[in-house]
């Protein structure tokens, strides 16, 4: 099979178009494909819809930079570092439109997308305003077998899924080290038309063959493979590194102020020309060893 190995700028420019719906692996402060997110901002993508289970700093940046104009997801927060203020502001001013789903409704929409079904049902959400709010995608329907009504969740097929992994081979087979699986790897990339994988390292397939039980995504669904060490920074990527508290705190501190937030983005997103330059601006070797330290995941 041909190698899918490429650079992050090539992967994003080839596979993400303005207006696309982009599924973003993320769980508050966990495992976001941040190198890909920064590239979306650098390339000034516009009009993206972003699908998240629980979005964090990535959604805050994409809102601030004007990359996204809609969100499909269950929550957005940086947990201990507070609400995402730029996302909040963008939603409150009407610049970002939210399609809010519960976790089972999002899973059902993506599950239907993956399996080429018109919808999958859930029993969640019954009685909430979230159904009334979203008639295009959620409908209370009768159970054809005579049970109580369920909520039909319309299929969602993202244009692209962005995921970060421990290691991947050049064909795109994705493998995780022994750890928890990220909450969304189970469905996001399977529902999407295209998949871009960034990974801590690209390894020969022979390495994956030693532990095929840890391969969670087959190469045939993957379109591009990029090696990006610390590609999830400042979110955590256990067992490799923990979330960067200092970085999150620094962003939370400036994020309410337009000028200071722009300076932060200039320094950490727009100026660095490579992952090495990004890591250096974020604290370099001292930061990396701190995040891998015994406090680490």
């Amino acid at each position, binding site marked *: 099979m041909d190698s899918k190995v490429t650079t992050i700028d090539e992967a994003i420019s080839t596979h993400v178009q303005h207006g696309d719906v982009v599924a973003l692996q993320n*769980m*508050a*402060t*966990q495992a976001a494909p941040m190198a890909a997110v920064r590239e979306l901002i650098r390339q000034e993508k516009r009009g993206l819809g972003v699908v998240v*289970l*629980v979005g964090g700093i990535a959604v805050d940046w994409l809102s601030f930079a004007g990359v996204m104009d809609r969100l499909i*997801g*269950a*929550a*957005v*927060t940086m*947990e*201990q570092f507070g*609400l995402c203020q730029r*996302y*909040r502001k963008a*939603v*409150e*001013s*009407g610049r970002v*439109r*939210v399609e*809010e*789903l*519960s*976790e*089972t*409704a999002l*899973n059902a929409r*993506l*599950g239907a997308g993956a399996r080429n079904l018109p919808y999958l049902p*859930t*029993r*969640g*959400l*019954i*009685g*909430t*305003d*979230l159904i009334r*709010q979203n008639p295009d995608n959620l409908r209370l329907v009768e159970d054809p077998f005579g049970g*109580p*009504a369920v909520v039909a969740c319309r299929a969602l097929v993202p244009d692209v899924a962005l995921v970060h992994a421990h290691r991947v081979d050049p064909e795109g087979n994705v493998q995780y080290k022994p*750890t*928890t*699986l990220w*909450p*969304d*790897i*189970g*469905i996001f990339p399977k529902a999407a038309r295209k998949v871009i994988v960034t990974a801590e390292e690209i390894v020969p397939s022979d390495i994956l063959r030693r532990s095929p039980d840890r391969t969670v995504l087959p190469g045939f669904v993957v379109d591009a493979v990029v090696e990006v060490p610390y590609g999830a920074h400042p979110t*955590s990527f*256990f*067992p490799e590194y*923990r*979330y960067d*508290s200092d970085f999150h705190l620094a962003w939370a501190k400036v994020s309410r102020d337009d000028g200071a937030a722009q300076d932060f983005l200039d320094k950490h997103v727009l100026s660095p020309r490579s992952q090495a330059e990004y890591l250096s601006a974020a604290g370099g070797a001292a930061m990396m060893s701190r995040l891998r330290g015994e406090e680490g*995941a």
Partner: protein
Amino acid sequence: MSGKAHQDARHYTVDELMISVLSSFFEDGDQACNGMASFLPVCAFMLARLTHAPGLVWLASATGLEPRPAKVPASTLESELWSDSVMYMEQYGDFWNYAMNGRWLQKFCVGAAQLDMYGNANNSVIGADFHAPKVRLPGTAGLGDMGSLGKLLYYWNPNHSPRSLVEKVDFVSAAGYLGGGDEREDLGLTGGPQAVVTNLAVLDFEPESKRMRLRSAHRGVTVDDIRAATGFELVIPTDVPTTPEPTDDQVRLIREVIDPDGMRKREFRAS
């Protein structure tokens, strides 16, 4: 908050009282899971497991089964919390297979920005216009599911006020008893909110009307204090007991073993 005039020397703080009360809802044979920013539930589960409910099964962050963290870490949605687990559950493929099933994970302990007189919860938006809200809240996450899946819901609220306990939520992100009475049951929903533990009181729901009711007042807090801090008319019984206080042993476990770094205090606004 009020009630300070009555305050005298005591061996615990209000966060510890709330943890003690929350822990009493969880027993051997239950399975409990916590979400993000959930220090009080995590402390309560750990306390229950160290005292009256060693057989309480805990699924940390809906991810790590039966973990053994050394102490409560700075996040309740990161790997430090689920260290030394016996199993990892993946959210899509695994967790909801158990949680959507009425047999497992029957109790859920959660916070909400707004809670109304019938126990409906709002974590979505403040304001009338969903697409131009006054405040965009984090979102319903798994709560919108838990409210409709027959779970018994236990809410905590560290800042009992007319802003967080409102007559009608701006938006129902999780079903409580809806308009009260049989409305929830008529939709085919079982379970529902059981209690609300605040920094002033423990509240529950009157069985017929499903209106929120004062169950006990914390020591030093008067019924008038609670009335003034609630945005609607609570059902108030003639006899309002004092909330059971934590034992010396519970307080010691919370301070020395479970949460020596005081993460549980993060949610409380300085008064």
